C-alpha cells in the first residue's frame, strides 16, 4: 500500500475534519492570493503611472550634478546641441535601448488674462512621446490616462495641461491661455498656448500645475538648442541597473560626465505607496498564515488523537516512527493541495468578475483612479501554495510526531 493511497483513504474516512482543513486552506489561499493579486495590480498601475503618465521612462540621464544643483543653475547643466546629439547617439547604439528622447523642464506663470497660477512644464518630443506611452508595463501595454501632444508642423503651440490647472484657469480643450517664463539668460518670454488635451497627471502634487509642451517650443522659450535630460526606455527593464552602468560608462568614455536615475528613484510616489502596500500585504499574509497554521494544527491534532490506537496498531505491525509521521504529512500535503487547487478557479473567477465590473479606487498619493483587478502572478501563487502546504505539513508533523514516538503499548491502550 503506497502511503499516498493510504493517506487518501484516511482523508475520505474522516470527511468532516478533512473538509474543515481543506476549507481553511482554500479560504486562506484565496484571501492571500486575492489581496496579493490586487496589490500586484496596484503596483503595476503605479508603475505605468510613473513610467508612462509621469513620462519618466525607465532611465533619465543628465549632466553630473543636475539632480542636486540643476534648479539653482539651469544653464550650467544644459547639454548643448552637439553634446546632446553625441550622447543620444551613444545611448541609441545600445541594443537594449528602445527610445532615447531629450527633455527640458520649464516653470513660470500660466494666465487666462484674469487669473494666474504657477506652472511646471515638461518639453517633450511628440513623436518620441507617442512611442514612450506604448511602453509595455509588466509585459502589457497600459496607456490608460496617458496623453501626448499632437504631431506635425504648426502644432508646436498646442499643449496638454493638468485637469486641476485647467479647472483653476477655466480653460478647456481648444481654448487658449498664456504661459510666461524666462530664458536661460533670465529674460522674460511668453507665448499663447492652445489646449490640445486636459489630463490627470495621476499625482495631486502636479495635477494643478503641470503643462506638457512641445520640446522645440521649450527650446525656443529657453533660447537653447540643447536639453537638460535624456529619457530612455529599455527592452528589458529588469536589467536596468546593468544597462544604466554600461551606458554611463560609454558616455564617460566619450568624454562626458553624466549621471542617471531610474524611474523608481525619480517617481514622487511609487516607492512610498508600494512600501505601504507591501507592509499591509505582508502583515495580512502573516496573520492569515498563522490562522491557517493554527486551524490545521488543531484539526490534525484532533485527527491524530482520535487515531492514537490506530497508530499503535501500525507501529505494532512494524511501521517505523518516521513512516507514521510521513503518513500524516502526506495527509496534510494532500489536503493543502486540494485546498489550493480548488482556490485557483475561484481566484480566476473573481478576477474575471472584477474585470467586468470595472471597479476602481484612488490610491493614496495618487490623483487618478486605479482599476481594482487581480493580477495573479504564477510565481506569487506558487509562493503562497508552498507557504500553505508547508503550514499543513508542519501541522501534521508536529501533531503526529509526539504520538508516533510514544510507547506502542501506550498508543494501543488509548481510549478513543
Amino acid at each position, binding site marked *: *500500500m503506497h502511503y499516498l493511497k*493510504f493517506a487518501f*483513504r*484516511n482523508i*475520505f*474516512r474522516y470527511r468532516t475534519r478533512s473538509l474543515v482543513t481543506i476549507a481553511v486552506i482554500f479560504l486562506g489561499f484565496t484571501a492571500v492570493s486575492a489581496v496579493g493579486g490586487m496589490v500586484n495590480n496596484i503596483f503595476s498601475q503605479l508603475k505605468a503611472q510613473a513610467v508612462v503618465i509621469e513620462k519618466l521612462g525607465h532611465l533619465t540621464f543628465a549632466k553630473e550634478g543636475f539632480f542636486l544643483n540643476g534648479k539653482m543653475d539651469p544653464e550650467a547643466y544644459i547639454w548643448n546641441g552637439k553634446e546632446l546629439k553625441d550622447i543620444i547617439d551613444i545611448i541609441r547604439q545600445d541594443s537594449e535601448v528602445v527610445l532615447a528622447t531629450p527633455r527640458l523642464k520649464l516653470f513660470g506663470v500660466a494666465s487666462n488674462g484674469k487669473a494666474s497660477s504657477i506652472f511646471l512644464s515638461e518639453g517633450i518630443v511628440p513623436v518620441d512621446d507617442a512611442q514612450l506611452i506604448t511602453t509595455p508595463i509588466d509585459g502589457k501595454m497600459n496607456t490608460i490616462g496617458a496623453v501626448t501632444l499632437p504631431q506635425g508642423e504648426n502644432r508646436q503651440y498646442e499643449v496638454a495641461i493638468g485637469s486641476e490647472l485647467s479647472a483653476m484657469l477655466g480653460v478647456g480643450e481648444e481654448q487658449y491661455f498664456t504661459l510666461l517664463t524666462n530664458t536661460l539668460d533670465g529674460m522674460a518670454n511668453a507665448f499663447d498656448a492652445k489646449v490640445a488635451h486636459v489630463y490627470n497627471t495621476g499625482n495631486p502634487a502636479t495635477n494643478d500645475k503641470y503643462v506638457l509642451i512641445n520640446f522645440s517650443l521649450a527650446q525656443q522659450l529657453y533660447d537653447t538648442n540643447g536639453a537638460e535630460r535624456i529619457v530612455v526606455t529599455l527592452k528589458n527593464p529588469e536589467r536596468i541597473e546593468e544597462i544604466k552602468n554600461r551606458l554611463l560608462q560609454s558616455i564617460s568614455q566619450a568624454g562626458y560626465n553624466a549621471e542617471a536615475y531610474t524611474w523608481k528613484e525619480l517617481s514622487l510616489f511609487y516607492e512610498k505607496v508600494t512600501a505601504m502596500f507591501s507592509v499591509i500585504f505582508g502583515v495580512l499574509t502573516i496573520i492569515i498564515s498563522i490562522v491557517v497554521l493554527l486551524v490545521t494544527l488543531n484539526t490534525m491534532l484532533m485527527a491524530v488523537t482520535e487515531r492514537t*490506537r*490506530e497508530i*499503535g*496498531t*501500525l*507501529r*505494532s*505491525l*512494524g*511501521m*517505523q*516512527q518516521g*513512516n507514521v509521521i510521513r503518513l500524516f504529512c502526506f495527509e496534510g500535503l494532500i489536503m493543502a493541495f486540494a485546498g489550493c487547487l480548488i482556490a485557483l478557479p475561484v481566484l480566476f473567477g473573481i478576477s474575471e468578475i472584477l474585470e467586468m465590473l470595472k471597479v476602481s479606487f484612488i490610491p493614496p498619493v495618487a490623483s487618478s483612479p486605479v482599476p481594482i483587478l487581480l493580477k495573479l502572478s504564477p510565481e506569487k501563487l506558487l509562493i503562497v501554495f508552498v507557504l500553505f502546504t508547508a503550514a499543513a505539513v508542519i501541522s501534521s508533523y508536529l501533531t503526529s510526531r509526539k504520538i508516533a514516538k510514544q*510507547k*506502542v*503499548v501506550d498508543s*494501543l491502550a488509548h481510549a478513543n
Partner: protein
Amino acid sequence: MNTSTNKPIVVSLQKVTKSYELGTQRISALNDISFEIYKGDFIALSGPSGSGKSTLLNMVTLLDTPDSGRIIFAGKDASTLPDKKITTFRSKEIGIVFQNYNLIPVLSAVENVAFPLQLQGISQADVLRRAKQILDRVGLASHYNHRPSELSGGQRQRVAIARALVTEPELIVADEPTAALDSKTGMEVITLMQELNVSANTTFLFSTHDPRITSIVSNVVKMVDGTIITRNGTQSEEK
C-alpha cells in the same frame, strides 16, 4: 535448544519485573517472571483481571520494556535494542492478534493482511499472492475485498489471525482473542489457531478468561498478582 523438550526456545523471559504508577501508588504488574516458550508451543495464559497477563504479553511482543530482567530472542536481549530495531524485529518475528482485532478500517481484508508484508518491502505481486493464500487458509476466500466494517466479529478476528500469520513469524501472541466474540465463534477461532499450530508448527501464546478454552488447551499458564503460579497443571517454581 532445551534438553528436556528437544525443541528450540523461541523466547525466554529472565527475571522480568514491571510496575506502573497509578496515582500515588506503585502497582507491581510482573514480579520476577522467568518463562520460556518453545517452538510449536500452544500456550494459554489464564488468570483474573489484573494478574499481569496483558503486561506479560506486552513484554513478549516487545511492545513494552521491563523495569528489570531480560527478554531473550534468538540469543539476544531484545528489550535493550533501539526502537527502530525492535520494530523491524517484531514485524518479522512476532505476529500479534488483538482482542478488538485492530484492523485498519480503510483497508480491505486482503490489504490488511498484506500490510505487514508491504512494510517489509516485499513485491506487490508476492504480497497479494501470500495474503490471499493466508485468507484462504482461515476460510475467508470470498471476503478479500471486504472492509472490516463489512465483516462479522469472527471474520474480523480471522483476518487479524491471517495478518499475524502472513509474515510467517516465530511466535504469534494473542491478547484475549475471543473476548469480543460469542462463545461459539470464540471456540471456532481457538480451533483455527490450534489447526494452524498443528499443521504449520506455528507457536502461539494467548491470554484468556474463558474456562472452556483453558479446558481444551493442554499447556495452560496461570497467573495471579504478577506471578506465574502453575504451568501445565503443575506448581510453578517461582511460587
